[in-house]
């Protein structure tokens, strides 16, 4: 029955296209209104801007110190994710290859920490950071590295279990030291799960609001999300100045959208692979 099949196919595509438009419409709205004055946003929120005026984008970039906050966020994300990737893969490797009671207990400890919500540790953690003089960017990096461990150790642990030991044993017999063994033999084999670990951790660290809010607060060095939050809070005292908020949101999400579109295959694969391993 080809006609019935075709009908079903058309319905499916129509549903998918409508839902895609629905999914994209808030982003379209964001782009359109980033080029309008407050008056124009109020009078015609869904129309194309009468002129594509970049002045709102530029003033929003000034308001949120775009260059500074962008690089702060970038540095925090890159360093934290690098630390998480390296130490969680090493730790997971040690726990898989060394089958002692202690190693099992440590693994359970790492994994069960996934159940601890951030809210249960945040006040004592900030108190501790205050004492250690770590309410700053290095402190933030240390905290992200700690919070990223649980999930990453879990993902690496599951993956390394499926890698045969014999490759490493051959390398040891050939005289490789522990660093060569890890960096040249094991780490390249972990590439698929490393991509997952990098993507999952980058996404939440880049977008995170609460931890920078508690650690940095309204200081002179803020992350992108934090700048956005304070821009909104300060401007809300004068109504809702959407002519500032829209362009500020737009410039703050452009970097991640660009990275996603460049690496989308890795994203989709990495996310699904990570999920199934869980």
């Amino acid at each position: 029955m080809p006609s019935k099949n075709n009908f079903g196919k058309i319905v499916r595509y129509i549903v998918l296209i409508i839902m895609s438009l629905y999914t994209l419409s808030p982003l379209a709205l964001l782009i359109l209104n980033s080029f309008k004055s407050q008056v124009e946003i109020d009078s015609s929120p869904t129309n194309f801007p009468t002129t594509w005026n970049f002045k709102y984008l530029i003033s929003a970039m000034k308001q949120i110190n775009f260059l500074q906050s962008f690089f702060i966020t970038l540095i925090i994300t890159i360093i934290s994710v690098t630390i998480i990737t390296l130490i969680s893969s090493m730790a997971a490797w040690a726990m898989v290859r060394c089958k002692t009671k202690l190693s099992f207990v440590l693994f359970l400890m790492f994994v069960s920490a996934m159940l601890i919500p951030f809210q249960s540790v945040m006040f004592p953690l900030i108190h501790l950071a205050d004492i250690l003089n770590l309410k700053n960017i290095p402190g933030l990096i240390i905290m992200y590295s700690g919070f990223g461990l649980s999930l990453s150790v879990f993902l690496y642990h599951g993956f390394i279990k499926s890698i045969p030991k014999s490759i490493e044993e051959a390398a040891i017999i050939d005289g490789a030291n522990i660093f060569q063994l890890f960096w040249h033999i094991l780490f390249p084999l972990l590439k698929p799960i490393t991509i997952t670990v990098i993507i999952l951790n980058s996404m939440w660290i880049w977008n995170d609001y609460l931890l920078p809010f508690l650690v940095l607060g309204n200081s002179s060095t803020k992350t992108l999300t934090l700048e956005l939050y304070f821009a909104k809070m300060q401007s809300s005292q004068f109504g809702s100045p959407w002519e500032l908020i829209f362009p500020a949101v737009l410039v703050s999400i452009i970097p991640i959208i660009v990275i996603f579109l460049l690496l989308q295959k890795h994203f989709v694969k990495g996310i699904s692979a990570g999920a199934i391993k869980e």
Partner: protein
Amino acid sequence: MNIYYKKWFFPLIGLAFILFLTVILIPFVVGVFYSFTAWKGTFFFKNNALTYNPFSAIVGFDNYIAAINNEKFCNAFLYTIKFTVIAVIVINIVALVFALILTKINQGAGIFRTVFFMPNLLGGLALGFIWKFIFEIIFSKVFFGPDGLIAIDALTNMTQGNFKPLLALVILVVWQMAGYMMLIYITGLNNIPTDLYEAAKIDGASNFQQFKHITLPMLAPAFTIVFFLTLASCFKLLDQNIALTNGAFDTRLLALQILRTPSDTSPPNYGQAQAQAVIFFVLIAIVTLTQVILTKRKEVEM
């Protein structure tokens, strides 16, 4: 060879362990302890006396009793449960339906997957601001207001009142998370061997029977993951809550309630906030563990 790995066990695991200890374990244990003290942030305050020694400011279960009698905390507790139940159900239905549609088409599936996944990339705060505009201006004036396309009162001013913001949050998180969960369901659907369906067809099973007796049971591992992820992230939702209503009209979810408890009183009552945080942890641990055990059991029965 085991000896070789044993020798290197501590050097390899050391850094991870130290980080874990300082960032999670110690604050967690200290937090549980402080929930039994009259902690005010930088000092402790018991019997009208200021002290810096937590051991002389132990108040037993007072903070927990105060938390349970705290109207704001109880509201937030119920609000979170209501929100989570509705959001988890809707996200799962939407994600599964679109996963089923997407696995049935041949061309363009990749583009649709990318589009549906995109909202998940962005931070809750940025998205919350966009949706606040949509609810307050687009919905209330352009679409559903008295002068709009169709007047639907229920869909106007969704950031005001108590129940409407709950629905607004559901709309927002479904829009944001359904695409991610859809990817997991698609992976699950692709892992079902096609010969099962072929065998069922030969036996004369209808489409619905195939769905009920093959697709649903074979998706059990995907259900486990998706339920875990959606439950956990809905329970802990914060950024979207701040962006949409910032807790006005008793619309605080638990995460926001705990964050704002110290600033509700003067001096800040960190002891009670910490007690709420411990209750929050117990709630999340019980719910997610029960869920994983229940859905895993379904997987095993397969």
